[in-house]
């Protein structure tokens, strides 16, 4: 069985299907009216996490032990504390290597850790107070920490992505951090090369590798083969350098999916024709995948957390749109179908399978 956790502007929905990944059953919303920016599920503890935000009542990290039937909404410790900045958004939640360890990203940008499966939280303050933080500036969603990538085997290593600050990596469990953006431009910064301030949109580890990363940045698509120390542009063969999400293959480090959008001014798919681009050679070349997607006048917007892959073979790939559609491919992108329509704007898709 495959369950898609779909975070939207107005709640959390689920889509469920058998391993054929067709005939989806929708349920929800949980947190009706609240914005769900990021969702995760840890199969080892059976815990589901949702990063939930209200413009009025602020953010929380909710947790569920029964696949979303009931929720613990206490989110204790998810704050910058007495006299600190008010937390405005919860933008990322990711279960890490050690069972019960979970990370959460906030806006204004900062990183929190829980060691009790999301019951209580504490900030890892060294990131927010990093000497390069003066180079950070807010993107369209504010200054937010939106991407958390735990190392697959070393609990002390973690990558985070902040807009617009870039990729930061710790190798000592969050005590110290270094910007890892070499090779990526930030044309709005005054120093060359920029110290920090890159506009990372989303990045993921490729194929269970500890060194291969794929990134969709404001200024292009990039690959790293050394854990983020250096990045190479891989946008040759794509219709646009701009876009938000990237999905990766759970077993093949050379395979990734991008969904380019026309640049920063328009931010929808080129020519109104949605197309997913798949590379099987680490970004040296791409296949345009459109079978089953709308053929014209579909000016879809796909946001940073709204594309995901599952762990089955062949891999399922999914994306949600700001107009409330969820598209699914059970065959690594070769064919697509509409899994849901008329949802609120989709902000996050996570596949549990």
């Amino acid at each position: 069985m495959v369950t898609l956790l779909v975070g939207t502007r107005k709640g959390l929905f689920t889509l469920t299907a058998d391993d054929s990944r067709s005939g989806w059953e929708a349920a929800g919303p949980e947190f009706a009216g609240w914005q769900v920016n990021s969702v995760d599920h840890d199969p080892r503890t059976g815990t589901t996490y949702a990063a939930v935000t209200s413009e009025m009542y602020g953010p929380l990290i909710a947790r569920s032990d029964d696949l979303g039937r009931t929720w613990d909404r206490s989110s204790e410790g998810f704050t910058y504390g007495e006299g600190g900045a008010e937390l405005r958004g919860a933008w990322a939640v990711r279960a890490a290597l050690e069972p019960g360890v979970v990370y959460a990203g906030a806006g204004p940008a900062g990183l929190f850790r829980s060691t009790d499966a999301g019951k209580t939280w504490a900030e890892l303050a060294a990131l927010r107070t990093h000497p390069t933080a003066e180079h950070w500036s807010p993107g369209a969603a504010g200054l937010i920490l939106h991407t958390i990538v735990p190392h697959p085997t070393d609990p002390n290593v973690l990558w985070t992505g902040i807009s617009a600050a870039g990729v930061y990596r710790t190798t000592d469990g969050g005590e110290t951090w270094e910007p890892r953006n070499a090779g990526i431009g930030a044309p709005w910064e005054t120093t060359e090369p920029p110290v920090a301030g890159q506009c990372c949109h989303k990045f993921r580890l490729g194929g269970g590798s500890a060194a291969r990363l794929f990134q969709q940045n404001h200024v292009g698509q990039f690959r790293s083969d050394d854990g983020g120390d250096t990045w190479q542009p891989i946008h040759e063969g794509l219709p646009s350098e701009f876009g938000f999400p990237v999905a990766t293959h759970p077993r093949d480090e050379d395979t990734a999916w991008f969904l380019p959008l026309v640049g920063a001014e328009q931010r929808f798919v080129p020519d109104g024709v949605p197309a997913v681009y798949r590379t099987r050679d680490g970004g040296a070349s791409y296949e345009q995948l459109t079978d089953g997607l709308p053929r014209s006048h579909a000016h879809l917007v796909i946001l940073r957390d709204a594309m995901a892959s599952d762990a089955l073979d062949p891999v399922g790939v999914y994306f949600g749109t700001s107009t409330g559609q969820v598209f699914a491919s059970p065959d690594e992108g070769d064919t697509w179908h509409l899994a849901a329509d008329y949802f609120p704007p989709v902000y996050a898709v996570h596949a549990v399978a």
Partner: protein
Amino acid sequence: MTVTVRLPKELRRLYDVPLPVAVAAATVREAVAALDAAHPGVGHRLIDAGRLRRHVIVFVGDDQAGLDDPIPAGGEVTVLTAVAGGDAGHQKGQEPAVRAERGPGTPPGGRRGRVAPSAHRAR
């Protein structure tokens, strides 16, 4: 001392809080803490970093109140949220919320002039 608190519907629904809810408290801060003890997490929806969240407004009786303002015995605490746009005297969008949370018998928007989000930033 027992006081009664009225929370907006969105919060009541998410944290399963009755309307009104009775708590033992002498100040707004104590009332929020008592609510949080009974409904874990709801206090953090109203207060962060030691302050009322920027779009949250609290009344004790008829007067807008800060966290450390006292609540008389039997007093009524009403929590509202700011509504963006408009000027204080013409915030149509606020009327339903005010009516719903204050219950029958209260003139709708009777104190709207005090609920200007820009003018009365939460203390």
